[in-house]
């Protein structure tokens, strides 16, 4: 039974194998893929959107973090890099990472775009080129600064500390409408305030006639080395991955937006497609994140307020960005040191604590996505480069500075070999004075990019700056893999702006 225009098919509905034909097939419904599908469908193009994960209805959103991670994330949320061991999460659900992320939207700064253009032979990726695309996406998703009413004490203390030190800070712009300040973006927004792709771009695409096949895992791009003809793969049961059927979609244009870990694997599994440059899967970069827990006398009630509501962009050129943060207590506590009564005492401080994080623009720390013989899960190799380590140490110092300026009585960084708790800024000087090894930092890397990077020179990049593969004229990539370097700020909005531009190019080409 073929899928009708504007239909969303879910696992329970697949009776037979599926064969569809479309003008454009888009693989992956994360921020990149969903924006491409919506834009093309709204321009009257015939689009099929394929997503391996299921859509999560409100009934399916699980607040328990362990169960939520098992259901919404690949490898149950326990994926990690080898080399420097760092957890990294990628979603498997309609909406991709946008279902579980904090909705932070920041435009890549001018100096980043300038550097991208200069170093990667790009001529049409300037501020002026991208701003219209940022704005179009921003209007659609209602991206706006977080109002004070939903900041919560944890974020406001961050502002207070920055103000006291004269550091710039600002409310974070987010793709939300009517945020209640529940601080639970990580397990999916029960208030349906976060404009994740499953409730924003995908329904818009469907309204415009896009066909959406969920539980559809693409395993191969079909066609020849020069021309893609479509994709094929398996219908897979949510959570178990049990194969229940096959599908094939024939299309004039193929867009891969499976995320920067999955797209290179798909290209490799499709016979080493689009890889004359030999850059597919290489250049993997992250924004490794570090965090502090600041202890206050007052009740902070850190689980109230926007998950991430305030930020400081003051240190972007020094390689780090600072933010307020909340995640389920279980997730945060995994990094709390000790056991027994000591651990209990530390956990009991949570209501008086504010958690703030920093992400590092670690461009020297490079890794790669490798293909496993079986399955589509990637093997991730990545090492934190010793030259990037001082960025993280400085970031932790600045966060400690802000905490003490905001009135904290203690700061915990989790870095081994320094006092478990700092009680004054003097204690924190060790972060400035000591040299650290990469293994000293417990980092997490949920911002990942560059594995199918854009480059003006076809010998040195997989796609051009419009996301078009250099080697395969009708194959496009629209996920964060196309970034040439770290964006220095949260990547989603830049990924969507680039995807918006790619959609325009595809529409014109049809």
């Amino acid at each position, binding site marked *: 039974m073929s899928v009708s225009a504007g239909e969303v098919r879910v696992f*329970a*509905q697949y009776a037979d194998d599926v064969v569809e034909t479309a003008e454009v097939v888009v693989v992956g419904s994360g921020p990149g893929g969903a924006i491409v599908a919506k834009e093309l469908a709204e321009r009257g193009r015939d689009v099929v959107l394929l997503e391996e994960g299921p859509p*999560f*209805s409100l009934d399916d959103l699980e607040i328990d973090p362990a169960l939520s991670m098992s259901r919404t994330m690949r490898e149950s949320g326990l994926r990690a890099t080898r080399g420097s061991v760092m957890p990294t999460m990628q979603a498997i659900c309609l909406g991709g990472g946008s279902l579980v992320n904090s909705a932070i939207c920041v435009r890549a700064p001018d100096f980043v775009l300038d550097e991208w253009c200069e170093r990667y032979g790009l001529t049409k990726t300037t501020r002026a080129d991208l701003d219209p695309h940022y704005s179009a996406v921003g209007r659609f998703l209602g991206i706006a600064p977080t109002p004070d009413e939903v900041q919560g004490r944890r974020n406001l203390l961050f502002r207070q500390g920055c103000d006291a030190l004269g550091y710039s800070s600002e409310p974070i712009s987010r793709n939300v409408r*009517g945020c209640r*300040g529940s601080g639970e973006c990580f397990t999916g927004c029960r208030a*349906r305030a976060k404009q994740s792709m499953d409730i924003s771009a995908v329904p818009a695409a469907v309204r415009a006639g896009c066909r959406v096949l969920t539980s559809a895992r693409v395993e191969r791009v079909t066609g020849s080395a020069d021309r893609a003809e479509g994709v094929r793969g398996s219908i897979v049961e949510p959570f178990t991955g049990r194969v229940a059927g096959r599908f094939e979609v024939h299309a004039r244009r193929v867009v891969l937006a499976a995320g920067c870990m999955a797209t290179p694997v798909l290209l490799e599994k499709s016979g080493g497609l689009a890889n004359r440059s030999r850059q597919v899967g290489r250049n993997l970069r992250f924004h490794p994140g570090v965090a502090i827990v600041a202890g206050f006398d007052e009740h902070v009630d850190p*689980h109230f307020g926007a998950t991430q509501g305030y930020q400081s962009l003051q240190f972007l050129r020094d390689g780090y960005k600072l933010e307020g943060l909340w995640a389920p207590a*279980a997730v945060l506590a995994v990094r709390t040191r000790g056991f027994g*009564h000591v651990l209990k005492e530390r956990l009991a401080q949570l209501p008086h604590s504010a958690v703030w994080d920093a992400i590092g623009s670690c461009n020297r720390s490079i890794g790669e996505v490798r293909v496993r013989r079986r399955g589509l899960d990637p093997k991730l190799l990545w090492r934190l480069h010793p030259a990037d380590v001082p960025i993280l140490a400085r970031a932790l110092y600045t966060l400690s500075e802000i905490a003490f300026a905001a009135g904290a009585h203690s700061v915990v960084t989790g870095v081994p070999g320094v006092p478990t708790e700092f009680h004054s800024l003097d204690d924190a000087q060790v972060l400035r004075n000591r040299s650290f090894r990469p293994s000293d930092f417990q980092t997490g890397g949920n911002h990942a990019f560059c594995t199918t990077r854009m480059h003006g020179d076809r010998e040195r990049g997989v796609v051009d700056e419009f996301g078009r593969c250099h080697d395969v004229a009708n194959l496009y990539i629209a996920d964060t893999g196309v970034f040439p370097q770290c964006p220095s700020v949260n990547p989603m909005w830049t990924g969507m702006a680039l995807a918006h531009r790619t959609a325009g190019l595809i529409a014109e080409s049809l």
Partner: protein
Amino acid sequence: MCAGLVALLAARRVWVGYPPPPAHVRVLGRREFGFLTAAADTVFPPGGAISASGSDAEVAERTDVWIGEVAPFLRVLMRLLFFLVEHATLFFPAPGRRGFRRFSSLDAAQREAVMSGWAESSLGPRRLVFESLRAVLTMSYLSDPAVLRELGVAPRDIEPGYCEADLLFPPIGHGPDAIRIEPEDLRDVEAPATLACDAPLDPRYAAPRA
């Protein structure tokens, strides 16, 4: 004969003497359940800053549910982790008398000493074993509604904000017939009511422990 006896004794130390887990435990075997209960009570002993112990918080039961949902290869890794810590003391004994017993058969002081050994080892891989085990136990401990209530971080009740997507997607495992939302249920999400610190708890987290 002698070798047979030694093998029998070794098998007894590894396999025998675990009480059966509660009937609702589906994935963990009795040995794994026994180990997790002992480990949870070592990492989260009774009393102190948070009243619930690992057993009170049903850490082993919660881990059973979780392990039933994780990817199969991770389930194997988790089981290996439990096996390793449970039986390491058969080769590297705990301090004190009768230290050559599996972890769950040691007394509380010995378990604490063994756990410290893992936690403070100068060998990175040993510390990693401890951190992985503690991560599993902590995830489960802090999933217990009573613990979250005591810490004051239990999730609040949130009025669902139905939107257009809820007319499109049935609950996972069901077809479109299962969609119960009607267009008139949709809410204007632009008009939020900020969640107050004293907002009622989500019903799943509000009930006192049975």
